[in-house]
């Protein structure tokens, strides 16, 4: 992803942000769409396109759980562990998925297909316990068996053209 491409993407929205620092987040999200994470080259491109230093852009990116500074799997499974989900059994769901994927807690599968992580409230308490794939569909309420089916379905899908995370 080049700085020019990011600048082109930002051009129509620049006027919406009074403080140019606010452009960093949409720029990061757009850059992350290419590889699913933010390699150093993407971070430099964002820095160049937004006019901030790389250190500053990295500082912003590191603040957000969903900006990935390390490579992650083709799909990121976000298991909500905040109050409603936790009371309705998110620990069990998490452990079940980890078992099924052969992971020891949070992490990425050896085939690079899935990354499993705990996240804080995703605003789906009415469907607790809930899981979100990347920044897409929220699936819930979940039974362990549903999670297994979901993972099998996802495994068969081709890699997305752009990662929405």
């Amino acid at each position, binding site marked *: 992803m080049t700085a020019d491409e990011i600048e082109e993407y930002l051009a129509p929205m620049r006027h919406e942000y009074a403080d140019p620092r606010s452009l960093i987040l949409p720029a990061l999200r757009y850059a992350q769409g290419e590889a699913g994470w933010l390699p*150093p080259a993407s971070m430099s491109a964002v820095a160049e396109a937004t006019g901030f*230093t*790389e*250190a*500053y852009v*990295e*500082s912003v990116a*590191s*603040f957000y759980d969903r900006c990935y500074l390390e490579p992650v799997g083709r799909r990121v499974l976000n298991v909500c562990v905040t109050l409603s989900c936790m009371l309705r059994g998110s620990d069990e769901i998490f452990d079940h998925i980890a078992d099924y994927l052969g992971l020891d807690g949070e992490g990425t599968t050896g085939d690079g297909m899935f990354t499993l992580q705990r996240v804080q409230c995703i605003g789906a308490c009415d469907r607790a316990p809930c899981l979100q794939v990347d920044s897409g569909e929220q699936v819930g309420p979940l039974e362990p068996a549903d999670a297994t089916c979901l993972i099998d379905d996802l495994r068969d899908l081709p890699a997305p053209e752009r990662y929405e995370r």
Partner: protein
Amino acid sequence: MADQPRTLMTLTINGQVVQAAKGTMLVDAAAAVGIEIPIFCYEPRLGAPIGACRMCLVEVEGMRGLQTACSTPVAPDMVVSTDSEVAAEAQDGVLELLLANHPLDCPVCDKGGECPLQDRTFRFGPGETRTLEPKMHFPKPLDLSPLVALDRERCIACFRCVRFSQDVAEDGHLTFQERGDHIEIATASGDPYEGRFTGNTIDLCPVGALTSNPYRFVSRPWEITNTPSVCAGCAMGCNIEITTRDNEVKRLTGRPEPNMAVEEGWICDRGRWGYPALRGDDRLPGAVLVDGVGRRSVPLERALGVAADMLIPHEARVGILLGEVVTVETGFLAMELGDRVGAAPAMVRRMGIPGDGLGLMRALPGAQMDDLDHADLVLVLGGDPCSQQPVAELRIRKARRRGVPVVVVGPRPTALDASCEVVRTAPGQMTDAVVAIREHLDGTRRAIVLWDEADLAAEPGAAEEIARAMAVTEGARAIEMCADVSGPGLRALGISADADLLEAIEAGGIDVLVTISADPTAGPAGDRWAAALDGVGTIIEMASYRSGLTDRAALVLPLLTPLEEEGVLVSMAGRAQRLRPGAREAAGAAAAWEVLIGITHRLGRPVPDRTPAQAFARLAARHAPFAGMDYGTLDREGAVIAAAVATPDPRRPEAGGEGLVIVPCTPVFGDATAHRSDALASVREPTHVGLAPVEAQRLGVRTDSRVRITTPHGEAVLPLRVDSRLHEGAAYLVMGDPAVRAMHLLPVDRGPVRANVTAVAREDVVT
């Protein structure tokens, strides 16, 4: 000043009626009447308050919830309580949270004993912990750079260091990464935090998270004494504090009560970590006498008598040469000595730039560094403040952040180029920029012009035109970026840097030469000096460090350094400030003023002074620029001397030699102290030649090749750096390492000169 008239507001703090100007923050209004509101992140020098640490919560009647006193401005009839039950409970709570992950390892922490977190916890904290949960642990300490150590466990995320890096030094290196209890100070991708000002983050850190590597575990606060003094590293005159333990200088810091008219509490890393030079290998430990018996050490007391004997013969013609870093008292007493020796009066001269063509520039109204805060234009003419007077860079950046146009004119690339308007001139062609300078000055009312002594002295034509343009600009004032630390002070005493002393020596007119912290053989036209000195019967060298003269001198008198002596230095803005001795590391050495007074006593014609304070009072009475001053009036802030009246001299030096124009560069990070101090090994700048790529190509050389550089005044073989920012047709001569001669390539008046640069064949290189 164009400030609005200050509107006073009346409010009540803890039942006390307080008046404060509009815009004052509550924390300052309270401090003004002696009420302490605890703070960690608040630091006005870093810009607008950010309310990050939440320590300063106070109760304000009528406002919902508690307010941060650091970011709440005073308002009429406000009723504030800083010690009510609610406020005290909140302060307790904030401290408890700040300490939740703090390791409380005060007994092994360098900050312990002088730590705001420790002090405020005692004063405002809960007194006991309720925390049962395990604390966060990180590997520690991490080297943020070879000079700055980071302990992540102790950090309370106050953002002071990050704001310094982002908003004051503007290097953009330091940021916070992650968030919450994982938050940590870091640079992009873990590069070392290196720059010219990194040490200020240590002074700013209100906890023990950032500490000085060279000072690590060196002393505890109850074993040290702190002495306010002034840095003699460049002509900026930054106020510092010297930390001493067991008669050794252990640390230098910015002064806790900054001189806002000079450095605002910031100092550069060269100033901060130059002190190990005091214990360098080439420090002169004691007096040495060379006579019929041979070369031997003698006690200083006896050496003073020998010096007097050498100076007493009434027919002896004496010259006294003062170096680039001596106090005004030393200059004054040298003149007093000169009146008492041989065929008096002696010729008393200083090393430095004669500056004959600078009369008009020097006659312009002067300014102080804090006038930059109110300027409507900042012009930098020649030189490179970023490398030669580093803290000036911070004040220039501060002006630019206010939106003031900053224009940098000259042949050198500077660190200001990226953020300021640049008028790049060909070396030696500052005249080309005069039209642009006039245009910028046009219509300004409070322009401040920082001009480089060395560059404009080499181009008196340009200096004259610029001075005339400034003279007709309303409100325009000047600050001279002096090449020498002692220049402004000694000039005010009427001591010239004229080459007539050298000419007199060459004509056989000097029998005894006394040098005071001066080695002319390492200075401009050093070869010519070296040859001339062969004809001097007796050389008496007074110096702190071994030099090219030490082996020639009949008598060597060891001197204390500016960190060890008392005296007054005059800054480039004309501010006379006091040095106070931190330690006396060379036991066999004495201050120059002591040595000079001692010699006059042994001559049988003593000066009346017994202390530098007395010498200063006497010189102030005799020399108009210092009128009315004494050590009392200088106190901590110093005082501005009256400008010495200078007469313009229309001499126009022409560049001698042929080939590339030499652009002399004297970065403080490349100076003798930087090379003597081990601490600065990772950031010091070697003596070298810089060439533009096209010149390097022409010679068939590249970075790290060695080149021979020849001028009519001498020759040197130096390493090369190719830099695309440099001007074609010029050789940038970066000097300062005392082990590598380079300054001798310049003419005696440091005027313009051209050099022949050639590639050095491999077999020519002497290693």
